[in-house]
């Protein structure tokens, strides 16, 4: 009885066991510990940034049951990735699955280690899509949505295919109401930047702004209903140097319309830091174009 079902059950448990060798517990916040993935045998661990709320006193719970201290190498809040370093040695680096092999409808497991033992839950790949930008402005190479339930402490752990390969990193903070997974390619590029520079460069203007509805005739002319009213300009910032003042309404930056803070955030990418770009603004009822050199955000 139950040949195929037995094989399926064994395969699922086997996949969890295989992947679990690279899944650690991350103790980096007050309450619930979360999970992380061993990136390299020399001690790099990737996890979700939102589960590492402190910068010191971080511990990693290894598959062997031992715990070891860890430090923060760097954080990228925009993709919700944090890179930690712990002692290398008896670590098994993650075996990443080929992204091209993942298809909608495939069975996948979310694996976590919020405590000493591995925990797992099953679901299917619900949707795959192109590159997308997170609310925080981070660029993600592929959209991966599943119907796995993210239990407490599963963030930072892997999405695992049926052969135990790791498809990506699960984070409950990327979107509300859906389970999204960061693909290996994105983790790879963020890890590389964090390991080299310790940070992800983000652009900075130095303004506070809020969305406002534009006058109807102007909206028709511009083909844009909402702009960003500048409500504060910090001294000695790119915005101040460019001559932006309180009361200006920002309409577009570098040729892209901005009606919401998220849209502006998404434009303040690392590759724009130090570049002079056009800022289209509304001042005294007139549309003007100014030049602003994007600065770099400190934190």
């Amino acid at each position, binding site marked *: 009885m*139950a040949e195929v*079902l037995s094989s399926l059950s064994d395969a699922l448990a086997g*996949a969890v*066991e295989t992947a679990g060798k690279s899944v650690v517990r991350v103790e980096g916040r007050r309450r619930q510990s979360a999970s992380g993935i061993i990136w390299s045998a020399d001690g790099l661990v990737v996890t979700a940034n939102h589960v590492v709320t402190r910068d010191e006193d971080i511990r990693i719970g290894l598959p062997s049951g031992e715990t070891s201290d860890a430090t923060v190498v760097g954080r990228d809040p925009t993709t919700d990735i944090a890179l930690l370093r712990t002692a290398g040695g008896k670590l098994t680096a993650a075996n990443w699955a080929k992204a091209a092999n993942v298809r909608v409808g495939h069975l996948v497991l979310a*694996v976590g280690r919020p*405590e000493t033992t591995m*925990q797992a839950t099953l679901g299917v790949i619900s949707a795959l899509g192109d590159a997308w930008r997170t609310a925080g402005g981070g660029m993600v190479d592929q959209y991966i949505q599943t119907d796995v*339930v993210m239990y407490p402490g599963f963030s930072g752990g892997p999405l695992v295919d049926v052969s135990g390969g790791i498809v990506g990193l699960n984070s409950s903070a990327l979107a509300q109401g859906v389970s999204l997974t960061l693909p290996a390619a994105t983790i790879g590029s963020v890890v590389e930047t964090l390991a080299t520079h310790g940070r992800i460069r983000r652009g900075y203007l130095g303004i506070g702004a809020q969305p406002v509805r534009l006058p109807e005739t102007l909206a028709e002319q511009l083909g844009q209903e909402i702009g960003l009213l500048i409500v504060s300009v910090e001294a000695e910032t790119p915005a101040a140097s460019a001559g932006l003042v309180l009361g200006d309404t920002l309409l577009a930056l570098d040729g892209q319309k901005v009606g919401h803070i998220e849209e502006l955030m998404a434009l303040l990418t690392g590759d724009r830091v130090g570049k002079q770009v056009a800022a289209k603004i509304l001042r005294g009822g007139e549309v003007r174009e100014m030049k602003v050199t994007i600065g770099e955000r400190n934190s």
Partner: protein
Amino acid sequence: MTDLIQQLNDEMADVVDHVKHTLVHVTNNGQSHGAGIIVSSDGSILTNAHVVRQRSLQVTLPDGKTVPARLVAHDAERDLALLKIDVTELPAMQIGDTQELQAGQWVMAVGHPWGVAGAVTSGVLIDKTNHLINQPSEGRQWLAANLHLRPGNSGGPLVDVKGRLLGLNTVMAGPEVGLAVPADVIQTFLQEVAQALGNHKPDYLENNQRPEIV
């Protein structure tokens, strides 16, 4: 490919058929409903303590026959109860082993959710844990599975792919976690009850030792 899924479906249905031979329906004079499992051929029925609201109970057997049942033992802390019916030569559920459990393995729950007799839900084992947060009775051992338990599932079996009893479905925790009392806890309970009955203990054990024999 399609053959494989077809075979998978057939095998899951076989497991359910097998399990249903030992699945009963427990009612309190038609009031509340729960599930129960035949654990001995001479009519011992295991269910959740919270399913048993009063001493006058009825058990509906897999063949549809409803018989009176009497409460033998009741353990509110472990949420287990043992009933007895005067029917013999019944098929009994084999109690499985919880030592070999692995996160990710396939499990199925059979019961009577919302009164739908013999309905099934399935998922995988999340963990054998006493660490899940939002769980009732901190520190207790549970089997956690990613499946939906509903009123009427209580007292029903959580089984593995071979139809062996892994746990007694008891409660939901958090949004999508079904919790079951593990088979080893059930074994201990059954042994304690057998011992207490064998020793001709009075109506209940001394010093409030569990389980309470009634």
